[in-house]
């Protein structure tokens, strides 16, 4: 993973950022209408505030506080007459006697009208702001949701080999934290920087109109700032990558510890586990600290440089105001009275340049955050970029409606470079039961995994009615082959939902019928809420035999042409086993059934027995034929079973 971190740090360029942002497009597109509406609202209100602020600044500072006459447009906006523009010769207090200004009463009126506008503006903007905020939250949540579901869907279909090497907590982290970065792509990579840059540009232009020196000052200060950016960007990215990795590891640690908690308890290993947790936690905290301090350093550096420029500018502007030099804003005299440097002009210019400085610092922070965003986005896409190992062909057909045969032809399979199966040739016809027998680790379950296409064989193929599995639609295949797993996996849902898992909308009657076949109905009825009883985490409130029967019921309910039973009665006592197998016998007449088992009673009555040893089918045939083989592996196996199963010594 550290190689990936290095590659992240090195190769970031504008094109890379653009391509990452572009990949977010499919998730933004469904919300496009809403996004545009929201952005329009934002832009309009922003423009209004900018323009209105300028006017209000002039009105308030120059007109009300100091008493200068109104500009014509201002009088119109306040519904006042010309008398406010062309005032009688009343001198403005405290300034040059030649200036004429408004009377006290006039100033009062201007003030009142301005405040009425102000009050309305506050009311409207508060309401608009809240609604816009809610709207934005909704839009971004929908975008995030789409990405989450896409990631989840991809994760579900990835091969088991992939999952083997990844930690559950990492998936949780990616789906939660890493996918959340997409909500900020538009805002943080496109809108805010654009808006900040546009505002800053507008600010620089405005300042240039006040005085070209100010514009020049702004441009000059960008140089050291750019140097700071270049220095800090890779640092921030590296620490962002590390922060995400360590937090993902911590999530995995917690999940794994709690999933294995019974074993931890039994082995008194709690302190080991807690130590590991502490280490992971500390690493995650340190990484988060480093990330934040890097961003703070960048923002602070930018801010100090920018504010230094502000101070210089203020000094210059004070000088100009004192000497009443001319500005370049004379042409806009109808709206604002900033032809020469005065209080209002100083306030506007000082405000603009200070705002530019703060915007610059904000952009710096944003840029720091954007590094983290990019790292998170890459981690989210990583999951989407994984290809499932098992894919269906372009012209995949659905599962055939009537099953005739299942055939393994010359199948070989290796797992992690270890050979598991070799030269497997096996055919099962409709209405038959095939028992798969062999020592532990001989490859029995793997044989069945290939039929479910959890993996593809390295050599050879498996076909249904002569069609190779690759040519069949994968969902169709899996919904026509049912398995009762050896490990009796149950989920934390009601009994009924567990039995109905992955079946297509069975009725309650069908669920109960399946439970009767597997002899589970009797104990379910005794549960406090019967079929609606919630099972514990991982199905833990049931005994192993009960879980096994539920697992079998689930397989039966799916009513598939092919049924796989993996050690279906290992946890059942003899009596229950009898009843279950008898019922399955009836039910399984027109299907193809595979049973992996050691129970002689079951094996003996199968139509054919595949005896596996070290990944090969050593012997294949019915019970009597195999027993006749001298020194045969199957015979040896049966003898051992009989001896161990007989009541006598």
């Amino acid at each position, binding site marked *: 993973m550290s190689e990936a971190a290095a590659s992240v740090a090195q190769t970031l360029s504008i094109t890379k950022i653009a391509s990452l942002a572009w990949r977010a497009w499919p998730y933004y597109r469904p919300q496009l209408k809403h996004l545009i509406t929201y952005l329009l609202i934002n832009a309009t209100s922003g423009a209004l505030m900018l323009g209105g602020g300028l006017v209000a600044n002039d009105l308030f500072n120059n007109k009300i506080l100091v008493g200068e006459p109104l500009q014509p447009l201002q009088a119109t906006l306040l519904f006042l007459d010309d008398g406010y523009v062309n005032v009688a010769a009343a001198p403005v207090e405290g300034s040059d006697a030649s200036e004429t200004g408004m009377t006290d009463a006039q100033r009062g009126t201007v003030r009142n009208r301005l405040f009425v506008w102000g009050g309305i503006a506050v009311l409207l903007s508060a*309401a608009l702001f809240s609604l816009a*905020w809610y709207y934005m939250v909704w839009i971004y949540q929908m975008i995030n949701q789409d990405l989450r579901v896409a990631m*989840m869907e991809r994760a579900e279909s990835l091969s*088991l080999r992939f999952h083997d*090497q990844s930690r559950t907590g990492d998936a949780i982290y990616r789906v939660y934290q890493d996918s*959340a*970065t997409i909500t900020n792509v538009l805002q943080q990579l496109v809108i805010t920087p654009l808006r900040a840059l546009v505002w800053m540009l507008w600010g620089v232009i405005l300042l240039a109109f006040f005085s070209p020196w100010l514009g020049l000052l702004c441009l000059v200060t960008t140089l050291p700032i750019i140097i700071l950016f270049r220095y800090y960007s890779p640092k921030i990215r590296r620490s962002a990558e590390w922060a995400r990795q360590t*937090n993902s590891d911590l999530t995995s640690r917690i999940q794994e510890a709690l999933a294995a908690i019974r074993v931890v308890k*039994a082995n008194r290993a709690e302190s080991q586990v807690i130590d590991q947790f502490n280490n992971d936690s500390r690493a995650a905290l340190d990484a988060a600290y480093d990330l934040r301090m890097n961003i703070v350093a960048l923002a602070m550096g930018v801010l100090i440089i920018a504010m230094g420029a502000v101070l210089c500018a203020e000094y210059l502007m004070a000088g100009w105001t004192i000497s009443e030099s001319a500005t370049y804003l004379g042409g806009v005299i109808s709206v604002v009275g900033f032809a020469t440097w005065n209080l209002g002009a100083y306030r506007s210019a000082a405000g603009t340049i200070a705002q530019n400085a703060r915007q610059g610092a904000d952009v710096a922070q944003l840029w720091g955050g954007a590094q983290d965003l990019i790292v998170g986005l890459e981690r989210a896409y990583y999951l989407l970029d994984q290809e499932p190992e098992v894919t269906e062909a372009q012209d995949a057909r659905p599962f055939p409606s009537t099953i005739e045969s299942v055939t393994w032809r010359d199948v070989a399979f290796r797992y992690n470079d270890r050979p598991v199966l070799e030269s497997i040739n096996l055919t099962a016809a409709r209405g038959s039961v095939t028992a798969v027998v062999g020592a532990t680790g001989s490859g029995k379950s793997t044989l069945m995994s290939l039929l479910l296409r959890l993996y593809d064989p390295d050599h050879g193929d498996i076909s249904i009615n002569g069609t190779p599995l690759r040519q069949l639609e994968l969902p169709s295949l899996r919904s026509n082959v049912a398995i009762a797993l050896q490990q009796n996996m149950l989920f934390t849902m009601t009994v009924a939902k567990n039995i109905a898992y992955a079946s297509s909308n069975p009725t309650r009657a069908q669920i109960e019928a399946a439970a009767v076949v597997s002899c589970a109905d009797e104990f379910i009825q005794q549960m406090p809420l019967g079929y609606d009883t919630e099972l514990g985490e991982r199905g833990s409130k049931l005994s192993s035999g009960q879980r096994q029967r539920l697992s079998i019921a689930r397989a039966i309910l799916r009513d598939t042409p092919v049924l796989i039973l993996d050690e279906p009665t290992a946890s059942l006592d003899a009596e229950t086993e009898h009843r279950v197998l008898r019922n399955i016998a009836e039910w399984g*007449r027109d299907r193809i059934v595979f049973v992996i088992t050691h129970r002689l009673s079951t094996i003996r009555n199968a139509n054919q027995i595949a005896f596996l040893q070290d990944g090969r089918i050593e012997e294949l045939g019915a019970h009597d034929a195999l027993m006749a083989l001298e020194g045969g592996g199957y015979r040896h196996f049966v003898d051992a079973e009989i001896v161990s199963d007989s009541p006598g010594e």
Partner: protein
Amino acid sequence: MSDGATAQFDDRVDVDPAISSMEALGLLWRSFKLLRGVPGLFASKFALALLGIFPPLLLPWVGKVIVDQVLLQRPFGGTEVRFPPFMTPFLNYVAGMSPIEIMGSIVAIYAVLLLIFGLRAGGTGAGGLTQGQDAATQSELALSAGGSRSGGLVGLVETMINIRLTQTIANRLRTLLFRRLSHLPMTTLDDNRIGDSVYRVMYDTPQVPQICFNLSLTPFFAILGAMISLYLMQYSYGQVAPELVWIAAALVPVAIVVTVPFSSLARRLNQSSRAAGAATTNALEESMENIAAVQSLGGMTLEKERFRVRSVESFKRHRHAVLFTQAMVVAGILCTAGAGIYVATLVTDRVIAGEMTPGDYSVLFGLYLSVGGTALAIGMYWINLQSNVAAVRRVFFFVDYPVEDVRSADLAAPASVKRGIRFTDVSYQYPDRSTGGRKVLSDINLKLSIGELVAIVGPTGAGKTTLAYLLPAFLRPSSGQVYFDDQNIVDVPVNAIRDLVTYVFQEHVLLSASIRANLLLANPVAIEDELRAACATAGVLAFIDSLPDGLDTVIGRSGDTLSVGQQQRLCIARGLVRNTPVIVLDEPTAALDPETENALVSALHNAAAEKLVLVIAHRLSTVRRADRIIFIADGRIVETGDHASMMQREDSPYRRFVTLQSSASEARRLPLPFMCLMTPSPMQST
């Protein structure tokens, strides 16, 4: 699907999330006490924040000087407004300077203060980091939150301290929570959702530091700032406009009164949002952890749909909480703005009348804004605390939950088991609702001796596992006593008991780490030979040696590196590595073929020479060679003895049970694909 319809969602342990106001206060107090653990960091943060209050006080006054004396070039002392005492040195310094010289001095002072305190540059903080639109993603940011009102050097140091302070408080709590979760009793583990626990540790604990700060630093500095502003207003403008002071002061209680009635709604909305987030995590965790089963069963679409529904719900709940907060903010802003307009009216009247200068306006309004901002903050303050309380309640729920007795082993604990274990009149019934308080075991009287291999046999659901759970004290008897040698273990801490008893579960849970790490989990000080010996006894050494990395092979998460039988034997090896006097094996041979099973049982016999080995099994082959067999049905011991003698009794229930199984083995062949009994009665014997 009714998923997500109730406020509790998946919660089965934490089922009553409502918080009364008294409880909220209690939770706030407990969070506050966490500060006791970080005195140094807290004091430093406090000191720096205090220091940072003072420089900005200069700003409005210096601003007034800029406006009046520099830009408008008025001489000092024009109106009745007095400068506050701390401005005196500055005023003395600039007395008699020309306007441009005054400006020069001001710029120089600003520059120094900029570097040190970041004056006029705003505060510090790592803003800009990605924040999602749901509670979980926002919590991760909260974990390392920290900043400063100052900038510059002071701001930098304060931010560093603040981040560490936040992290330390949150980390202590989350470590405590994790520890408690690891010690939950077995009966609770059944109901506790892993995803929910992950959510609490990762996303609920980060809300705690904010409570600590909101109960200490924030109100202190807010009130301090407000008081200073009010004092300054009073000092300089008290004579001129006394009512301004009172309006500003009155804002604080008004803001509180407007928001307090909504506290419990705030709590409910936030709790709901978090519970929905935890439910989403549950679905995600269960699905990812069991991906092999999900794919085998063809449940991918189902799982995706389950996740999708829950995720939508959690987003929706979060949105509601956000909307609510926004509404409160708007209410607060309107109050402040309304009063602000009134204040501005008063001040401008005076400016127009010549009683104050335009510079005074900036000072006054600046002061007013800071007081107004404080009032708004205080009003929002209580509401924000409620959202944190909702998260913190979820944390303290498990911190307070009764866990196993985890006192360390002390002198009272037995050092070993030399003779055996005795059960006297032991009964057990599950403490909770869903099994209806049914008695699972009744009147168990049993004596187990070191040196024996004992088998527990019986039909499914008879109570075998429950009985076995009593040995390592996963469960404590509802009535009756269990003795190790002659000592009643009811008062012995579970750690001490589990030092003497190893339990090997039927479900093979292996860590996705190396085989060696799995074995060392049981006994961190085991040496290589001990590991290999245990693997050999369990019959898995040959397989391990055939792997290219041997003991260091990493077991993948979906468990396909090993077959189920190999997993089973590895778990047994892990149990053997612990080398305790008592070892309990639950269905150790379920997945094994007869040969492997025979070898294992022989090995266990040898191991039983100095131990008590207890085996739960269904299969005759495993059970037959035990020194003693305990036959349990319906929670009672029906019969005990060794196989041979029990088989000779005429009406032995054990014999019935066994012959049924063996008669099944020798069934007649029938035309149907499977064996089929002609008579339903199990009483047939040969």
